[in-house]
């Protein structure tokens, strides 16, 4: 009896496996056909978009708008539009695309409302579509930022990333701030690097954005993101970052130290030297940053018990100028580890001799 049950189950498995095999064969054949059909459809869409973009107000009539709405309200149609638009970007003048997007504005807003009720995957696609907007069309779509905020709820990391990219494109500061607040309030993890680098694509005034963001209430993780963002900006925001140097909170302190590596500020120097002397975790970053603040104290850090501090100090010393005697002294230091590191960095920079002050 037991044997017959096992046999039946095994036959069932064999049946399922054979069915899976047939399914796979049919899937492979059909996906080959599907991808050819898709390529053809995209080409046709590209041609249609091109002919309309070259004659925008006349061609974008009520009938076209209704057709466009029917097309983009489902995911497949939207994908075709997106692929065609991406390819047309390289082939048409941006002004043509701008006029087209402005003329279709109402349709796209209507579609945004439809996509709000769809799955996260489809919402992500719509947000990606918005992130393709040309710069001159952005003022007409400013309000889209508020609509996209609703996409963040019950979503995936991909959807959130695409929404953020769309918000950077729209240059809607209020919506972007609200989106970041939602990330923090709901504790949705979003890679800090994606956030800080993504903000560089913000189409509005980035310096203004940075200052406005800084004035909100954030936890350490978001503050770290903001400092990394500010590090890549040209405007000096040392007044905001300097207090964070002394917080003693590692991630924040690391980010602040790296800020002062690119934005030289003499007021930060004593704090950086203090961090270096304390020889904690953040001393590693301080040793590297102090290469831009020539100070004899960096030589002492060559004797640090931390390997990375010794290496970074040696690298920083390469940015300073020394006399022959000083080089010789460092190359024959009693501390074997300091000596080894200094000579290695010296040789790797090709500085076999000395460089005079």
């Amino acid at each position, binding site marked *: 009896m037991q044997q017959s049950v096992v046999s039946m189950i095994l036959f069932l498995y064999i049946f399922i496996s054979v069915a899976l095999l047939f399914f796979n064969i049919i899937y492979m054949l059909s996906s080959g056909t599907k991808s050819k059909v898709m390529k053809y459809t995209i080409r046709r869409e590209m041609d249609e978009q091109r002919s309309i973009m070259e004659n925008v107000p006349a061609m974008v009539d009520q009938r076209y708008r209704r057709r466009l709405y029917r097309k983009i309200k489902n*995911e497949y149609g939207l994908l075709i539009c997106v692929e065609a638009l991406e390819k047309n970007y390289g082939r048409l003048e941006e002004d043509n695309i701008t006029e087209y997007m402005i003329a279709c504005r109402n349709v796209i807003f209507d579609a945004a409302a439809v996509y709000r009720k769809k799955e996260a*995957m489809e919402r992500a696609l719509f947000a990606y579509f918005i992130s393709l907007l040309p710069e001159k069309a952005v003022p007409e779509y400013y309000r889209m930022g508020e609509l996209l905020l609703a996409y963040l709820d019950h979503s*995936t990391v*991909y959807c959130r990333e695409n929404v953020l990219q769309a918000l950077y494109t729209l240059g809607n500061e209020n919506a972007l701030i609200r989106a970041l607040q939602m990330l923090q309030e709901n504790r949705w993890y979003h*890679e800090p*690097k994606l956030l800080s680098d993504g903000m560089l694509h913000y189409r509005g005034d980035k310096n203004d954005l940075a200052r406005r963001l800084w004035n909100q209430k954030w936890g350490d993780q978001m503050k770290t993101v903001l400092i990394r963002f500010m590090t890549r900006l040209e405007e000096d925001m040392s007044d905001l970052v300097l207090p964070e140097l002394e917080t003693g909170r590692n991630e924040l302190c690391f980010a602040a130290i790296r800020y002062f590596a690119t934005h030289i500020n003499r007021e930060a120097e004593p704090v950086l030297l203090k961090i270096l002397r304390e020889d904690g975790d953040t001393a590693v970053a301080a040793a590297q940053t102090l290469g831009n603040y020539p100070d004899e104290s960096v030589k002492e850090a060559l004797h640090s018990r931390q*390997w990375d501090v010794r290496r970074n100090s040696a690298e920083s010393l390469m940015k300073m100028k020394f006399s022959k005697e000083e080089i010789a002294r460092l190359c024959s230091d009693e501390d074997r*580890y300091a000596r*080894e590191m200094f000579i*290695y960095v010296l040789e790797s920079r090709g500085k076999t001799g000395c460089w005079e002050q």
Partner: protein
Amino acid sequence: MIYATYLLLSVSVGAWDLYYANKMRRIKNEIRHDFYFPVSILVPAYNEEVTIVDSIESLLKLNYRLYEIIIVDDGSSDDTVKVLVEHFKMRMEHRPIRKRLMCEQEKAVYKAEGLRVPVTLISKHNGGKGDALNMGINASAYPYFLCIDADSMLQTDSLEKIVQPVMEEDNVVAVGGLVRAAQSLKIKDGKRVGYRMPWNLVTSMQIMEYDRSFLAARILMDRFNGNMIISGAFGLFKKDVVIAAGGYDRETLGEDMELVVRLHVFFRLFLDVVRVTAFIGYKKRKKQWGNIKRVKQGGV
């Protein structure tokens, strides 16, 4: 019966996950970034004079902004070191290496000049693959390392794909890639342009087993964070996590599996070992029975 159930489940789950992942990518659900995390590629080598230069040349063509290559010669008795030094015009340097993990002493360190990517060659006393990888970890400069075999070839987008899961979740500390036999492929300019089963029965069985393991079993185990292995032919790890766990075991044969199991034990709930389902890494496989035996015995 139990194994049949496991096979069926793994194939079904694997097929579904792959379909879903493909669909997501098609409709722009993926993390795209110009500048991912910097990665150190560790290449342990033992008597690889025939293939090592081609492998390193393929690594230099990866589409990735910031990475370095560290080749660790594990006391080869052939001309592996000589071939590399001559081909890449390397020069010796007196580089101090921070030994956070136990490994044999290095004999010499070489660095290549003028290449797009920093390439370092460390020649050391023989200690096994685990030992060589530990040396590579000690010498690496970046927070993530990718271990590959010296006879592996990577697709040009391999690094980009394997780093993405790390950006998607904060508790991912290791990511495995798909390894396939090179005999089943046609590769052009670092891109896979064709894939078919060869006529040779033994090679075909090897290829099927690789595909079953990577595309089915491991995807199923990922669902429960139960993946016990990330292939040493292509696996990405967070460096400080591996160092905290003690690095690779120098005495064992299956050092890749041993490390992953130890990471599970070490971190318990904090570990998420994830699989990457992409056709990324290819490993040359020979069809002779003799060579299969050598692979089983864990030769480098």
